[in-house]
Every structure is written in structure tokens, then in C-alpha cells.
């Protein structure tokens, strides 16, 4: 992985008609990086991906790839591959012909074509299915054909739209491993779009969290998971107790609360349920709901601060509904947020 920027989005603005989907987006991606675009539906992640592929015209700004401005280069001349969420295999062609499609358009013929196609099919473990039609394959197999079809073209960038979301749990792990292997073996720059934070954390080198057409945070999986910069990111990655700060104090539905002796400078604080201390502390709450999750037990508390979610080890004694408990929100454990809402 070199440090130079390989793919750059500069002040990228994208729109469907008059409605702007992505505004002034800047993003630098290095060669061989594995990037996740993470966000809820409608955040502009798929739109951004389609613009990189050239399927959506750019309203303003630039897309640069490998030193060239490709903003106006048509999709069929970009050397960008895309694995569609629905795979988009050609139903009238066999696995072999699907994989050969792009190479034939490049003018490749004969033994060279055959060797490339065979090795592409082999690399995804589908050699014995070469003559099948897409309809005769399982979803996971179809996706691997789609992957091989894009990869034999040796794209500069491979885009993947929700690559794991249509697969069951066992196939997900398989596909995740497959993608990491392909990435490692070929060094292709990969960008995948997902709404599932677990998927992004598990697979990506860097995660780009998007919200309403803008980048909310860019960081390593560890950054995103432990150090969210905004209440939106915190909420998205599982911090369930999020409060703004006002004059260094926690602003709750029960008024301003002093958490520590010195004034806190962030815009807000966030705690995962696991970070809440249960059984001791200055606050009190009533157990409104409880759920058992094997290793742990989750409680929903009614408190003067508003609802609080706490999670404790399952080995701890259980609390009944309606029980009155003391708890603490330890300021030193909280993730400080620099932006709220």
C-alpha cells in the first residue's frame, strides 16, 4: 500500500434531477485499500459508488483515478468493476460466457481468452459449474461468478454493492474471507457499500461513515468503533446512551447534571450499554425491561436522566422488572463527541 492517493473524489456533488444526493464530498483513497462506505439508506453511499463507476453523471467536482481525471470518462472506458447487489449476471449466458463477456469485448480470443476465463472461474472455486446458467446456481455461487466476471477485467477499482447482505450467516463468513483473499492476492483497490456496521468493521481498512450526502467520519475500524466523533456515528455503531453537554454539564431530560469536578469540553458524551456501571453510583433508575443475550444481560432503566441502557455480564445476579437500582455514567469511560446531532 503506497501513501499516494490513487482514487480521489474532489468536491463531488451528485444529484437526481433537482434533489442533491451527495454534496461537496472529498475523499482520498490509496492504492490497495479496502474501504467501506457505511451509512443508513438514503445517505448517498450507493450514489457515490455509482458516480465512481460512471453510471451516474457528476453534477460538479472531480473523480480522479490513477493520476487521470475520469469525471467525464464514460463507464465503459473506466476500468472500474462493480459487483451488483443482485449480481446482475446475464441470464442467457453460461458461467463461462458471463466471465468471458468483458474479455471478448476487449478483443481477446482463442487460447489466451480461455486461459484467463478458466483461471477466473477457478479462483472462485466454480470450475465444475462453468457450463451452468446463472439460474442453476445458488445466490452465493452467483455472487462469486459476478466477482470473477469483474476481476478477470483486472479493474483499477472494484466496487461492491452490499456484498454480504443477500447471503446467510455461514456464506457471509465465506464471502468475507473470499473478498479479503482476492484483495490480498491481486492488490485491487476495493470499495464496498454497506448499511451494516459489523460488516464494515470486519472487512474494511478504513470506514467512511456517511449521512445525508456528507461524510460524517473517516477512520480505521477501531476509530469508528471506539472514537466516534458525532452523535450520529456513535448511535450508528452501538452507543445507546448519548447526551449533549452544555456548559460542561450533561444535558438530560432531568436538567443539567454535573458529572465531574472539571468542566467537560466536548459537545456530547456517549456510553455503550456495557460502559454503564450498574449497582453503584449517584443515580437511581427503575428496571423497565430486561433481555438475556447469553454472555450478557441488558437492562432498560427509567431514570430522571431519561431512558438508560445498561449491559452486565450474565454471571452477575439478575434484577427483576421494577427493581430500583443505582448506576453511574463514568465520565472517563465515555466517548467524547465533537459534534452533536
Amino acid at each position, binding site marked *: 500500500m503506497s501513501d499516494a492517493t490513487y482514487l480521489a473524489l474532489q468536491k463531488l456533488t451528485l444529484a437526481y434531477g433537482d434533489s442533491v444526493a451527495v454534496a461537496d464530498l472529498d475523499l482520498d483513497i490509496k492504492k490497495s485499500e479496502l474501504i467501506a462506505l457505511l451509512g443508513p439508506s438514503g445517505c448517498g453511499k450507493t450514489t457515490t459508488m455509482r458516480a465512481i*463507476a460512471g453510471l451516474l453523471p457528476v453534477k460538479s467536482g472531480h473523480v480522479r483515478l490513477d493520476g487521470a481525471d475520469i469525471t467525464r470518462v464514460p*463507464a465503459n*472506458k*473506466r476500468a472500474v468493476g462493480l459487483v*451488483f447487489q443482485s449480481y446482475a*449476471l*446475464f441470464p442467457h449466458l453460461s458461467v463461462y460466457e458471463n466471465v468471458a463477456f*468483458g474479455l471478448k*469485448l476487449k478483443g481477446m480470443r482463442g487460447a489466451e481468452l480461455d486461459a484467463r476465463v478458466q483461471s477466473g472461474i477457478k479462483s472462485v472455486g466454480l470450475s465444475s459449474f462453468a457450463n451452468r446458467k446463472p439460474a442453476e446456481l445458488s445466490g452465493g455461487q452467483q455472487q462469486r461468478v459476478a466477482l470473477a*466476471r469483474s476481476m478477470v477485467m483486472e479493474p483499477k477499482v472494484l466496487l461492491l454493492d452490499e456484498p454480504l447482505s443477500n447471503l446467510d450467516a455461514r456464506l457471509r463468513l465465506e464471502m468475507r474471507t473470499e473478498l479479503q483473499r482476492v484483495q490480498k492476492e491481486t492488490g485491487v483497490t476495493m470499495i464496498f457499500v454497506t448499511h451494516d456496521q459489523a460488516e464494515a468493521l470486519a472487512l474494511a481498512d478504513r470506514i467512511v461513515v456517511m449521512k445525508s450526502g456528507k461524510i460524517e467520519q473517516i477512520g480505521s475500524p477501531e476509530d469508528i468503533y471506539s472514537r466516534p466523533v458525532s452523535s450520529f456515528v456513535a448511535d450508528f455503531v452501538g452507543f445507546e446512551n448519548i447526551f449533549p453537554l452544555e456548559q460542561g454539564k450533561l444535558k438530560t431530560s432531568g436538567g443539567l447534571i454535573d458529572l465531574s469536578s472539571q468542566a467537560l469540553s466536548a459537545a456530547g458524551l456517549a456510553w455503550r450499554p456495557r460502559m454503564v456501571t450498574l449497582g453503584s453510583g449517584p443515580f437511581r433508575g427503575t428496571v423497565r425491561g430486561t433481555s438475556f443475550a447469553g454472555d450478557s444481560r441488558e437492562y432498560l432503566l427509567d431514570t430522571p436522566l431519561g431512558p438508560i441502557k445498561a449491559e452486565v455480564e450474565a454471571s452477575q445476579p439478575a434484577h427483576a422488572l421494577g427493581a430500583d437500582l443505582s448506576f453511574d455514567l463514568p465520565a472517563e469511560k465515555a466517548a467524547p463527541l465533537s459534534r452533536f446531532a
Partner: protein
Amino acid sequence: MTARSLFIPVTLFIVLAFLIGPFLIIVAASFSAGETLNFPPQGFSFRWILKVFTVESFQASFAMSLFLAIGGTAAALVLGIPASYALSRYKLPGAEIVRTIVSAPIIVPGIIVGLALLRYIVVPFQVGITPALFLAHTALVLPYAVRVVSASLDNLRSDIEEAAVLLGSSRLGAFFRVVMPNIRGGILSAFILGFVTSFNQVPVSLFLSGPGVRTLPVDMIAYMEIVFDPSVAALSSLLAFLSIGIVFAAERFLGFSRYV
């Protein structure tokens, strides 16, 4: 059996008798040995079947009908396939209106279409008889072409075109490489449906036919007005079996009924 349980089978029998009966009578009459069109037939012979092939005007009008059915349907598909594509792939303003207008020749009675074409296009613009017939048959087949091709396009995912483009194909190339092969069945079905519709068309052709230029059904009516022998029945039977054969083959090899 009670009266109630007899009701359905009896009704069914009557309906079927009305649907198939005339056809059976015509087939039986065409094997008659008699001189006039009669039922029950007098005797049994192939003489009227054979006579069909010797009537000169039948040969000319059959050729004309064949030309209109093949040419008109082909022209309707050339217009209809791009139209269907635009209607199914793009959110066009007024797409529904276009769909309705395109379907108009199905809904409007043929007599009116024929009269309108004659009065406002053929006469004022001095259109020749053959071009006028060709135009009319193309227009009549167009709705079927658009409907059937649209149905198969709607069943086809549109992202395969984007996939083809990203693999290096042009937009137009993607249409021919991945769309056309997947709607081939629909196009062939539209062709057969259009062919049969055009071939059996009477009212519009009646208005537009002129001296020496007739379609086969119009010619058969003209023939019957002069000669009342069983050769018209024989020809009808031959045509009916031809149509049945085509539709049966289409169903067998293409799954025709999926598209219609």
C-alpha cells in the same frame, strides 16, 4: 343427477359447441363432393381442397396477405421494440398516454380505423393501395408488438445492462448483447401474434383494398359473392390449420402463453 349438477356441464357443452361447432362444420363442408357450400356435406372428396390452389386470384391475394403479415409485423416490431424499451426503462412524462394511444387500434373497431385511414390519409394524400394496406397493418399490429415486448422487458432486470457497460460495452451494444437475447422469446411471440392478427384482418383491409389488390380474407368474401362452391370452406380450413399449427409450434418451442 339433479338439475343443478347438470347445469354446469350442459352450459360448458353449449359454449364449446358455439366455439368449435362452426369450425367443424366448415372443415366437414370442405370435403364435400357436391357443387354448392352445404352442410351436411354431400359425399367425400378432395376436389375443393385441390381447387383452392388453382384459383388465380387466391394466389395473388394470398401473396399480398403474406407480404402484409410478414412485412407489417416486421415494421411494427422495428417501431415497437424501441418504444417498449423506452416505456419500460425510462420514467417518461406521459408514458401512460403513449401506452393508451399505442393500444388504440385494439380498442377502436376496425371499421372505424379503416374508414378514418381511407378518408383522412389515403384519399387526401393519394396513397397507393399497397402502401395504404401496409401502413394500416403495421398500425394494427403495433399494439400487440408493444404489449408483448413490454411484458418480456418488464421481466428482465435492467442492471444487467449496466453490468455490460461496466464490462466495456456501449449502451447500444449492451442492448443487442444482453437485452435482445433475453427478450427473443417475447419478440418471436409478438411476431406470431402480429402475423395471425394481420393475416385474419378483414374490416380495415375491406376499406383499403382496391382494383386488383386484395388481401386473402377480402378476396374470399368477393369470391363467395359470385361463386358459392365449397372451395371457400376448403381454403378456410387450410388457413385455420395453418394458424393452429403456428400457434401450437410457438407454444411448444417458445412458451408463447407466457408473453400474451
